[in-house]
């Protein structure tokens, strides 16, 4: 089960990502636990599997409009759906990878898997609670969801 300090690693990662790429600060909502072992998702979700000393997953889920805006902020064409799909995977990869500065090299991350569309929910690993971190960037809401043993 994760503790508060570990949740803060991912909050720090989200803040650092958006500040670096957009020079804008994000607002972080109060993290909460998802009791149902399932978390609601946005239009696109980038999922990173975690293995090694810790097991579980990290995913970042966001609406299409926010991702189009982010692609434009990065200097590209926001109407290109391939880039919109790609960028959510890169956000998830960067936040998860940056967590190794705290968790160490045995915090192994997978390549991102991107889920498009809006399924009702994504199941998190069985018997684990997921921390949902609400993030507000540029008036858009996205969520970083962390589920670790």
């Amino acid at each position, binding site marked *: 089960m994760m503790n508060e300090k570990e949740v803060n690693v991912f909050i720090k990662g989200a803040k650092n990502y958006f500040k670096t790429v957009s020079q804008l600060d994000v607002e972080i909502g109060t993290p909460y636990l998802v009791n149902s072992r399932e978390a609601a998702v946005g239009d696109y979700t980038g999922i990173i599997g975690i293995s090694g000393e810790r097991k579980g997953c990290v995913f970042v889920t966001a609406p299409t409009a926010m991702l189009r805006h982010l692609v434009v902020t*990065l*200097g*590209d064409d926001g109407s290109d759906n391939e*880039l919109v799909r790609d960028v959510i995977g890169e956000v998830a990869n*960067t*936040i998860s*990878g*940056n967590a190794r500065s705290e968790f160490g090299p045995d915090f192994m991350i997978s390549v991102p898997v991107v889920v498009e569309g809006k399924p009702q929910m994504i199941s998190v690993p069985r018997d684990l609670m997921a921390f949902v971190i609400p993030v507000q960037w540029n008036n858009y809401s996205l969520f970083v969801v962390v589920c670790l043993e």
Partner: protein
Amino acid sequence: MKLLIVDDSLIIRKQIERELKVSGIDEIYLAVNGLDAVKKCKQYMPEIVTMDLTMPEMDGVVCVKELMKINPDIMILVISALSDKATAIQAIKNGARGFICKPFTEEDLNKAITKLLEDARKIIAK
């Protein structure tokens, strides 16, 4: 000089290509994973490479070793989200000449590539 950009993310490949403002890079090639990078390295013989680490098919750690076998003088800059010191040290031990962490700024990128270009020129001059 020739630059090979290796990253499985399209948006990162485009970002590196677009933000590169240093003079002296004449040709840029792109690779989507480690296997593709080995193929492109043999084909185009780049002097400078930017290398992601977490990639499908062949990851960046293995790829750095493979590229060093093809050209021991190749200048590899690792650009990765893996921010722990051990990973950076391992990349350098394998032969990489520099490491920058994602997310990166245009300034971070250009500073690191400028340094690599200087080193590459010194090797060519020998």
